[in-house]
């Protein structure tokens, strides 16, 4: 019984006129619980397509995604949104919080999507936010938060349903170095302590020190990053 996230030979192509443009070509990766994997690569290399397929937002043309035992190609749209809700925590490029909800309600919203909110869910949400250093911001609206606080709220939102897989799409794109380190180290800490399988797509090489493994995406092909470049990164 495989656990975590397995992506086997996934290919994704788009038809453009009579041509077939492939965005991903036979991509395979396996991430165990407690593992934090980074995918780097230039823009246009297929990183986002890769993350969308891993995140059950886009269907692969060929190959299979096994997300903690769910075979994504076999699921209906409704089941897919359920998988996104229960099994996946998304952290997006810009925090993408709902503007009219305060920090605490951002988390409750996710709970509401899956049904009733119980008292222990509220306690869990408060604890989570305190752990992420947002204890004093529970009632603040997104417009009153700094970039780092917004992104930390997004991290909390990704964790509230206790998902098995965390997917982060350029989580540091809009942050300065200090805040970027703060947020990524927080994600890494949560991944380790809560035993999640996590993938972060980034081209911010400063952040690779937090990751267990680094993959490079180029022209739709995924390969382990060469040790030389990794060593170079580690020296930084």
């Amino acid at each position, binding site marked *: 019984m495989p656990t975590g996230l397995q992506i086997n030979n996934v290919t994704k192509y788009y038809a453009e006129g009579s041509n077939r443009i492939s*965005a991903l070509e036979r991509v395979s990766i396996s991430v165990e619980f407690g593992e934090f994997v980074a995918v780097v690569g230039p823009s*246009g290399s*297929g990183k*986002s*397509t890769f993350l*969308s397929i891993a*995140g059950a*937002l*886009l269907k692969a043309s060929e190959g299979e995604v096994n997300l903690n035992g769910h075979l994504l190609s076999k699921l209906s749209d*409704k089941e897919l*949104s*359920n*998988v*996104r*809700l*229960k099994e*996946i925590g*998304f952290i*997006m*490029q810009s925090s*993408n919080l*709902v*503007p*009219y*909800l305060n920090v605490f*309600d951002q988390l*409750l*919203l*996710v709970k*509401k*999507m*899956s049904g009733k909110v119980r008292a222990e869910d509220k306690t869990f949400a408060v604890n989570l936010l305190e752990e992420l250093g947002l204890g004093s911001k529970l009632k603040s*609206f997104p417009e009153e938060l700094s970039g780092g606080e917004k992104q930390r709220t997004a991290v909390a*939102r*990704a964790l509230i*349903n206790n998902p098995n897989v965390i997917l982060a*799409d350029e989580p540091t794109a809009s942050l300065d170095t200090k805040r970027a380190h703060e947020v990524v180290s927080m994600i890494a800490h949560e991944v380790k302590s809560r035993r999640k399988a996590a993938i972060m797509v980034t081209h911010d090489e400063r952040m690779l020190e937090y990751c267990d493994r680094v993959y490079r995406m180029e022209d739709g092909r995924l390969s382990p990053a060469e040790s030389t470049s990794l060593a170079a990164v580690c020296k930084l």
Partner: protein
Amino acid sequence: MFLALKELMHSKMKFLMIVIIFVLVAWLVFILSGLGNGLSTLAASAFQNMKADYVIFEQGSQSTMGKSLLSDQLVAEAEKLPNVTAASPMGSTMATAMKGNNTKNEDKVDIAVLGILPGSFLEPAVIEGEGLSSENPTGVIVNKTMKDDGFKLGDTFQLDGSTQALTIIGFVDNQTYNHLTAVFVPMSEWRKIAFAAPGSDKGIAGPVNAIMLQGRHIDPSVISSKLSNIDTVTRGAAIHGMPGYKEENGSIMMMLAFLLAISAFVLGVFFYVITMQKTNQFGIMKAIGARNGFLSKAIVSQVLVLSLTSIVAGVLLTYGTAAVMPKGMPFKLETNLVIEYSIILLVIAVLSSLVSVRKITKIDPLKALGRVE
């Protein structure tokens, strides 16, 4: 409901503006319906309140009293027909009552003189004084609005252009005909007023305008086939046959229909624009796992909250308006009608929000992330 209410609380100004528009629409709908109701009451309440089910008119009279002339001999024949429990003749004519010496403009009051048999089922119950009697043919019962014109119980008034004088012996409530005060007179007296000119009764013995029938299961075609040269219609059709009734009601109904159609579009567009603004948000919520049902419920419940608030405010404003309206205004609010139009408005609002719901279900969460390659 969670999302709906949180958003309402957060952007009060935006939603307040929508509520104001909706309240104005609801207010206008209620006022128009009250006005329509008031006008049709004024036009035909004497008919509407009559305990008759069917009306026999002369053939070719277009169900209009003024175009129909029958002999009262038909009453006895009609009574014997199947399912007819009672039949009674009726006549109507327009006249002008003159008060006292008739020196001022206010002294002349237009009235509708309705001839009926004293004691028949057509005679309305008096709220003051006593009912009609055959022994006193010039004693009449009149609608209480004549009090406002200065008439009292026991007053005698002359009819303009006639030698007849009538004495008020009783007052009745809610009896108007053709927008005029109804004056019920005994049949014999009505004939003297209506057929004062020789030959105007076309030589018919015992002329009347129509014969009213009671009986729930009457088949009009049976009546029409058994008696010659007559048309049998329902009381409702007779009301529609009153001169000007259809036209007056029709124009009010047309205004109401247009108003409702316009409000459907205005509200629909508003909800749609608001939803479009939030496409991105909804996409993100879908990406993190919100189902279409969850988001649709949020939209519809928000529309429900807005509509209910606006409709309640509209109803309150309408009753407030009704309270300060001048007494003579033909305005009549009925709880039934208010409830009916409230439901119609609510349904329209919810239906118009379905366009937005449809839009939501089509949002691609991937696009909302803005990272499609």
